[in-house]
């Protein structure tokens, strides 16, 4: 047994497994994806990719009420999708521990916005733990389950891109199956409608309990093992004191090893007395936090003077140099610089991506393209320049509908929505239903590459596999279109490599009235390599060819 190098995400999975987690679910999203992938390698745990984050959280709440610990993972914007169950799950509480991982993305390395999900802990009245490295990620996951059961509440674990994707040493893992210290709960649902059925009368009673719970948690925060004060060697009043948490803590220790530090592991609710005493013991107090001034705002509300966003940026990811500069130091300066500008290297669709033809075609036809999340968002970049909007998961179909309502006639026929298969299943199908129901006109194009490619090849409800790559039913686009009432002539499937067919299909469908669904089938090249290694490629290709043969554009259903 020795220490191991684990990523923060692998460490969360390890901590959950050690806590005896029964269910792990979520939706893939950078930087959270590897947590469930690591957990799925533990046969003791039921794991699934859920259809979307809302579904995942609801599965997790159900598992908790039935007596099994549940871990639910998602990226920061995924919490927006799961926000509806989240706020009321706070009122229901838990039976077995329920931990929700939010993986935030300061700097927007792989995201459409930079929201700081600590606000969700405050708004939904839930405790939140935030680790600084992999060992803490493992320990805090376990602490989160204990906190969840002790205070009858779902608990947030906040990761960031840097904690999720950095590797650091983790203490040895004892051999054998995990041994949770607590007595495991008896499995099985126990009726308790006053707690689990949130009609207004019950919700009003639970509302009070939620406030009492947060007050008790605030008291517990004063002595919680995740919060600690690191005093300097110097006697008496320290000149500089720093309150920090998460990855910025590691930068503080790097650039200001002499400073007194209050390290917060439990970032909501905050330990007021601990903070007041610490503030009183230092001459200058800094709050070093990435993104929004969440801790700083609370300190100011308590009348504690500090330097926060006056000294450190509110936008983007910190670096040790940024923290050093904020603390008044002088960071190292670069001494080596190329004597000419280094050309930018933009990401783009992979060379040979089957779906690059579609974008070339949409560009050539001067379409107005409502885009969606995933690899296909790269269609906005040169050489394609073939995407005009990108908002959130599933917004392509629905934004196209809104545009179509008010666009002048010369634009209406040129509006198209483009969405990937995983995103279509996540929240595109509801948009399709909306268009059909409301009698809208629209051309909706699903680019089916047989996987969730951008996040690293996760199966999805359209791909015929589930997490762990066991076989699963895949939704038949044609039957879906029929069930939604699309005329046969308004549905088609084409081969992504058949440029002429794509061009013809877009022309044909663009002129037809009503809702039109075009599925462009082209297996992701990276996924193909993986399928080949698993000896599944030939079968998959044959099945997809068969589907294509069945659905020429404009054919009759019969």
């Amino acid at each position, binding site marked *: 047994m020795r220490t191991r190098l684990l990523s923060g995400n692998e460490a969360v999975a390890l901590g959950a497994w050690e806590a005896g987690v029964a269910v792990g679910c979520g939706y893939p999203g*950078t930087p959270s994806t590897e947590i469930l992938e690591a957990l799925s390698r533990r046969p003791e745990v039921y794991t699934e990719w859920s259809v979307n984050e809302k579904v995942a959280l609801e599965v997790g709440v159900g598992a908790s009420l039935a007596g099994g610990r549940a871990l639910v993972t998602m990226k920061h914007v995924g919490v927006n999708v799961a926000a509806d169950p989240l706020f009321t799950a706070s009122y229901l509480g838990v039976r077995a521990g329920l931990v929700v991982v939010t993986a935030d993305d300061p700097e927007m390395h792989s995201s459409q916005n930079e929201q700081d999900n600590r606000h969700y802990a405050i708004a939904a009245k839930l405790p939140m733990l935030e680790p600084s490295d992999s060992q803490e990620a493992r320990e805090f996951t376990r602490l989160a389950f204990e906190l969840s059961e002790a205070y009858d509440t779902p608990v947030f674990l906040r990761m960031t891109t840097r904690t999720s994707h950095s590797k650091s040493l983790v203490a040895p893992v004892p051999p054998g199956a995990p041994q949770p210290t607590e007595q495991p709960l008896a499995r099985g649902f126990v009726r308790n409608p006053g707690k689990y059925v949130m009609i207004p009368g019950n919700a009003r009673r639970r509302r009070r309990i939620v406030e009492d719970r947060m007050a008790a948690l605030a008291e517990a925060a004063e002595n919680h093992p995740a919060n600690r004060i690191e005093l300097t060697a110097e006697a008496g009043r320290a000149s500089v004191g720093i309150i920090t948490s998460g990855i910025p803590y590691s930068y503080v*220790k790097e650039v200001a090893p002499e400073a007194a530090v209050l390290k917060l592991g439990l970032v909501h609710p905050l330990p007021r007395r601990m903070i007041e005493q610490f503030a009183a013991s230092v001459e200058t107090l800094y709050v070093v936090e990435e993104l929004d001034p969440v801790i700083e705002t609370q300190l100011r509300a308590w009348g504690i003077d500090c330097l926060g966003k006056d000294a450190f940026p509110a936008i983007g990811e910190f670096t040790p140099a940024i923290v050093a500069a904020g603390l008044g130091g002088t960071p190292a300066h*670069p001494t*080596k610089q190329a004597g000419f500008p280094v050309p930018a290297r*933009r*990401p783009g669709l992979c060379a040979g991506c089957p779906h690059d033809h579609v974008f070339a075609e949409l560009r050539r036809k001067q379409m107005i393209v409502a885009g969606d999340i995933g690899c296909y968002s*790269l269609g906005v970049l040169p050489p394609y320049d073939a995407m005009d909007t990108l908002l959130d998961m599933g917004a392509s179909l629905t934004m196209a509908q809104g545009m179509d309502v008010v666009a002048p006639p010369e634009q209406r026929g040129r509006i198209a929505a483009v969405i990937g298969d995983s995103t279509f299943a996540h929240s595109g199908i509801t948009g399709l239903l909306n268009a059909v129901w409301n009698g809208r006109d629209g051309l909706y194009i699903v680019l089916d590459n047989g996987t969730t490619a951008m996040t690293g090849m996760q199966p999805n409800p359209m791909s015929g596999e589930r997490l762990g790559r066991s076989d699963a039913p895949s939704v038949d686009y044609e039957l879906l279109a029929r069930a939604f009432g699309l005329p046969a002539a308004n549905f088609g499937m084409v081969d992504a490599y058949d440029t002429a067919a794509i061009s013809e299909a877009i022309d044909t469908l663009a002129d037809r009235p009503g809702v039109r669904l075009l599925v462009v089938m082209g297996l992701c090249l990276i996924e193909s390599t993986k399928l080949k290694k698993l000896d599944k490629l030939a079968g998959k290709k044959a099945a997809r060819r068969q589907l294509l043969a069945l659905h020429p554009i404009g054919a009759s259903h019969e």
Partner: protein
Amino acid sequence: MNEPVFNVLMVGVGGQGIVLASDILAEAAALAGHDVKKSEIHGMSRRGGPVFSHVRFGPRVHSAVIDQGRADVILALEPMELLRWAPWAAPEAAACYLATPILPVGVDEYPDDLDAEIARLFDRLVRVELASIRRSVPMKVRNTALLGAASVFVPLGMDSFAEALRALSPRGTYEANQAAFDVGRGLATRQVEELAHVE
């Protein structure tokens, strides 16, 4: 004060497979008894974009990220990427790079004096030409050869690298990886000796 930490920055282009090479380096440092942190960004899968991995080791490592002006060694799998990340190098930094350019999408011409510019910036330098390893090193373990070449600048023992290679090489590839590492190490050793001779 914090005790000194050794910083290695590994850079390349999306799809070059930098992660395994940096994992091997980090593992070797851990096996040698150091505290280690490693940081990289995946997702967007960096398709075709620049990729990087920070590896830091020493008695106690706090930050997983290397600041500008602090890298002791830069290992680059592409010459322009070495120039892109040059501001991260410490004044006395060494560099090791694969001299084959990969043109970014939409850029038709590369400056033709990349090697000269790199030589101007780095005194301690190993330049690996693809032709010099193409025959002796299979494509799949090329990055391990580059790691072997860079290892001449890294204060870790060969036994630690060998143990890390044994632990992390995909099944059945340890021998090939070790052989590639040794080819790179040998090539770099000769270059460094020649350089010393010239001086």
